[in-house]
Every structure is written in structure tokens, then in C-alpha cells.
């Protein structure tokens, strides 16, 4: 059981980073469906950097930048040129997939250098790691996982406790009002779309560098789409995103691990669980209709100042 949940944390991370990234993007009023594409871009650049330089820190920067560049393209098209967000996002997904294949083609089958693999090896946090059960599962992980925890904390504070976070929410909830109150709307949109894309890139890099330390095509295999759904499940809340990602991460590997826990369910049924859970939670949250679970008011609406 502990082995399974420890592995579930590893399966959580790509989903968590991507979900956090998309929360930032959506909170500032943009719906970027290119998560899958940005994850692939981050994965291939992260891998390529660590493969060529052996430096894990540079690799994380490169992955963040790659995702950010993908998101910048999105921002340019949707914010500056007022393009349709759904179409642009879908295009970004397809672009990212092709791009990662192209860049990664000559690296297929290459491994992350030993030293970097060790850098991302499991590290026990003193004291916390000694807590029975919880500590064994959550605090004997790799540094990338701890970075994920830190991001959850940072974003929670940023969104709910700081002035720029409040401004960002205002931009997403009611762009015209935010503009009227003097918030530089387009700057906010750009920054959060780009930062969100960077986080998606990190999610991809986790898959490409830590989960499978050998480059193989299409490492993301649809997780970007699950992240888009997770944002809704999490009600745009980073802490709920951590819980949601963990549940989905666990469900995604449950089929493969059930043997170790003495359960025997057909893999086909297990594969349906995450989607059943999605439907269920969407129904419940729609039914409750709490204010904090609703999407930002101006989500995916292009903003023309002249049309106010």
C-alpha cells in the first residue's frame, strides 16, 4: 500500500504542475487548451538540456522557458491579436507534439546522465520523513516533488493573500472593471499565461527527466487534457489541485499496482475510474454551485477596450 501511494505521488507531479499552470492562466481570464503541447515542449527541452549539459538546474529552467515560449505564442495570438482561445489552444497542442518529436528525434533512447538521475533520486526530509505512513509517502521523494509542494504553497499565498493576486483575479472575473480601476490588463494576462505555460513545461519535464529518465516520444500521453479537467475539479484552488492530482495520479496507476495489494479488477474498468470521478465531481460541484467553485467570470472572453 505504501509502495503504491509513494508511486502515486510520482504519478501526481506532472498533473500537479500542469494543473497549477492552467489555474494561473484561467484565473487571469484565458482558457489555454494547449497544456499537452506545452508539456511536451517542456519535456523535450528539459531532457535535451540535461542530456547535453548534465545540469539538472539548467534543465528545469529550460523546461520552464520552453513551456513559457509556447504560452507566449498563445498570449500573442489571443491577447494582442484577439484570436479565438479554444482554436489557438488546440493548435498549440498539435504544434507542441510535432515540435517535441522534431527536436527529440535524435535523442530517442538516450538516457539522462547518471549524476542528474542521482540528483533527482529520493531524498528523505529530516523529521517529516519519519512520520509513519504520511511521511513515508510524501516526504521521501525527489527534489522535483518538493518543488511541487512549494509551488502549491506559493500559489495559494499569491492568489489569495497578495495584491497582484487580487488584481489578477479581478482581470479574470471582470476584465472591464479591472481595466477601469487602472490595472494593466494585458500585462497581467501576458504574465500569467506565460508563467502558467512555464509550469506546464515543468510538468512535462518531470515525465521526461524523472518518471522515465530516457527520451521516448509522446511521454505526456494525454495528461495535459486531464490537467484541464482537474482545474475545474479543483475549483481553481491550488490546494485542491494537489488533492485532485494525487487522486488522479493514484487512479492512473491503480490498475498496474492492484496486484501488489491483492485486488483484481479488469484494467478496462480501472481505466474508467478517473473519468467517472470527473463526471461525478463536476455534477456535485455544479449542484452545490458555490461561489468559489465557479469559473472566473470573463474566462475565455477576448477583451476589446473599445467595446466596453
Amino acid at each position, binding site marked *: 500500500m505504501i*509502495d*503504491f501511494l509513494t*508511486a502515486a505521488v*510520482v*504519478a501526481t507531479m506532472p498533473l500537479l504542475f500542469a494543473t497549477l499552470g492552467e489555474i494561473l492562466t484561467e484565473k487571469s481570464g484565458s482558457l489555454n487548451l494547449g497544456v499537452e503541447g506545452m508539456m511536451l515542449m517542456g519535456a523535450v527541452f528539459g531532457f535535451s538540456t540535461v542530456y547535453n549539459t548534465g545540469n539538472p538546474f539548467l534543465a528545469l529552467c529550460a523546461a520552464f522557458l520552453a513551456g513559457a515560449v509556447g504560452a507566449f505564442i498563445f498570449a500573442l495570438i489571443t491577447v494582442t491579436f484577439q484570436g479565438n482561445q479554444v482554436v489557438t489552444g488546440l493548435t498549440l497542442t498539435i504544434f507542441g507534439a510535432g515540435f517535441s*518529436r522534431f527536436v527529440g*528525434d*535524435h535523442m*530517442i*533512447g*538516450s*538516457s539522462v546522465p*547518471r549524476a542528474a*538521475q542521482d540528483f533527482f533520486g529520493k531524498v528523505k526530509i529530516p523529521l517529516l520523513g519519519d512520520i509513519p505512513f504520511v511521511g513515508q509517502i510524501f516526504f521521501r521523494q525527489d527534489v522535483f516533488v518538493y518543488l511541487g509542494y512549494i509551488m502549491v504553497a506559493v500559489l495559494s499565498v499569491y492568489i489569495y493573500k497578495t495584491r497582484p493576486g487580487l488584481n489578477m483575479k479581478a482581470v479574470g472575473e471582470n476584465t472591464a472593471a479591472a481595466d477601469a480601476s487602472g490595472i494593466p490588463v494585458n500585462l497581467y494576462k501576458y504574465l500569467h499565461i506565460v508563467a502558467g505555460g512555464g509550469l506546464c513545461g515543468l510538468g512535462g519535464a518531470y*515525465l521526461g527527466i524523472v*518518471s*522515465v*529518465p*530516457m527520451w*521516448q*516520444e*509522446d*511521454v505526456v*500521453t494525454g495528461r495535459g487534457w486531464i490537467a484541464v479537467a482537474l482545474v475545474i475539479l479543483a475549483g481553481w484552488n491550488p490546494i485542491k489541485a494537489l488533492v485532485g492530482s494525487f487522486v488522479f495520479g493514484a487512479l492512473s*496507476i491503480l*490498475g*498496474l*499496482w*492492484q*496486484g*501488489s495489494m491483492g485486488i*483484481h*479488477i*479488469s*484494467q*478496462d474498468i*480501472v*481505466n474508467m475510474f478517473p473519468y467517472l470521478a470527473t463526471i461525478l465531481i463536476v455534477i456535485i460541484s455544479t449542484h452545490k454551485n458555490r461561489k468559489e467553485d465557479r469559473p472566473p467570470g470573463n474566462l475565455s472572453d477576448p477583451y476589446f477596450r473599445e467595446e466596453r
Partner: protein
Amino acid sequence: MKKRVLVLLLAFAMVFAFSACGEKKADTDDKDEVLKIGFIYIGSINDKGYTETQHNGTVALQEHFADEVECLWEENIEESTQAVQDSATRLIDNGCTVIVGTSYGFGTPLFEMANSGDYDDVTFLHFSGSDINDTNFGNYFGAMEEPRFLSGVIAGLQTTSNKLGYVAAFDNMEVNIGINAFTLGARSVNPDAQVIVTYTKSWYDPSGEKSAAEALLAQGCDVITQHADTSGPQLAAADAKKFAIGYNLDNSGLEGLEDAYLTAPVWHHDAYLISVVETIKDGTWKPESYYGTMADGYISLAPLTKNVTDEAKAKVEALEKEIKDGTLKIFVGPIKDNQGNVMVEEGETLDRAGIWEVNGVLVEGATATNSGK
């Protein structure tokens, strides 16, 4: 930055080089002597797995015939009727008179083309299917149960926990034949050996296959083998300091696997391709269902690495000889399935057709963690 400029320059150089090639090809077309063979691949040719194995055969074929044949190929073709037929049509338009479909799902679309009457002058060869007609469509496959059995023998001798992990793609006949042959091999030398199977329900899932292997390792397995396309299970075994047996091609040279890799049941597609192209060239080819064996050199066990014990090496060498001269058959009764039902009666030896009939279930000693079996 310098590198980027260099890459751009190289890219331009490549484009020019390709256009130069194009002109040359036009010249050789006139002579009409070169046999053009078109390969359709499901993946990319350097995937360190299924498609690379196929392509190694193509490269060897090209080298063998040098100027007499020209191999063309298309990569990453989906298993849909439209995609396959489009790809084949493009290859035929480029002058190919032989089309080789290297994935199971390519069979039906190509079979339709072969029987349509429009492509009577084209020879179709299909890997892993069973379709055949009287004029221009043949298929080929290999008796993978032979090297699988031998890899099982090694696993059975190397294990100390008597638990062997098997990361399998789909619960289908081909995969289960491999699992059963592996199990029979392991239990022939170690009656206590248990094979634990996890189906990933995908041919290609890098992180899923690795996670499946990690789960098997957590259950105490100390040898991991696979019938899936990525090297994820091998990496997981190496991480846990346990042993790995690969599939498709020899990955023993990959970084990080030095102390884990044992061997792999591998394909040598060139062995078949060279002989079949020989007959196509001299006009004696007839549609056939080729089933290559270890004796033919179509399949084999990759060279055993330093991690294999001397005892296992000697045993495998002796058994390999027996398989090649036909004295050792894999599916010989009595064999029971894991529910206790008789699969093969005592005194019965299965031939190809028999093997492909009874292996819907798993043999005694093999259990699946995530299916009804």
C-alpha cells in the same frame, strides 16, 4: 548560438543533398532494373523497439542487395484504412512493386488493395497477420515461443524470490503465447517459479510500462521481462538492482542497464526479407504464410550478457541446440491452464496452428494482476 547556426546550415545542406538524390533517382528509373520495395512503419525508425527492429531488417536488406534494390519507407503511419492505403499508394507511385506492411493493423487495408485488381503487379507482404491470397499477398511471422522459452529458462535460474514479473501489452493470443512459453521455460528448470503478469493495455506507454514494472518489483519479482515496446520496464528493474529481459532488439548497450540486462528474444527480419526478395527478383515467389524459427535464423535470443550465470548460459546453449534440431518442442502435453483445465493433452505436441488456438488462457504458474486470468 553557434550550434544553432550550424544546425541551420546543416539543414540547408540536407535539403540540397536530398534534392540531389532526387535527381539521381530519376536516372536509375530509366534503367528499370532496380526493384523498389516500400516499407510502412507504425512508429519511428529509431524507437529502440518495435519499428527500429523492423528497420534494421530493411537496412540489412538494402546492404545485401546494394544497387539491385531500393528500399523506401514511411514512418509513423496510423493503423487506419485511409492512412495505410494512402501510404501504400504514395510508395507505389514512387515506383515500389513490393509493399511490406510491418504492423498487424496494416493487414486488412493492404489486403483490400491487393484484391482490388488495381495493384496486380504489386506484391504485398504483411508481418504478423494471417491473410493470404493466390496471387500477390503473403504474410510472415516468427515462432517467438522458442526464444521466449529460453529467456524463461534464464529467468527461472537467475531468480531467488521465484517471482518473475511480466509487463505485457494486451491480453491477446500473441502476447499470451509469449507469456506461456516464458512460464513453461522458467518452470522447466525451477518448478517453484511464479510468473506475475500485468497488462498495460497499450503497445506504447513509457511511464505506464515503467510503473507496471515497479509494481511487479514491489511484489517481490526479481526478474522483469516484457512484451511491450518501450524500455521502461528495463529501467525500473535497473533502478531496483534487479534483472531485466528485453524484447524486440538487444538493448544491452543502453546506459544504466549494464548490471541489469540479461538478454532479449529478438527478431532478425533481414533473414526473411533477403530470401523472399531473392524469390521475387527471379520470379519464383508464391504467396505463403512464413513462420520463421530459430533454426532459420529469423528469431533468436540476444547474446547473453555478463549478468547471466554460467549455469544458465550452459543450459540455454544446450536447449538452443535441441530447439534448432527439432528435438525440443515448446508446447508439449500435459499442460494445464492456471484454472486447472487441460490445455494440451498428454502425449500431444502442438504445431503452429495448435499453438495459436489454445493460448487464449495463461498456463499454470502464470497469473495476471489486472484481468480475469
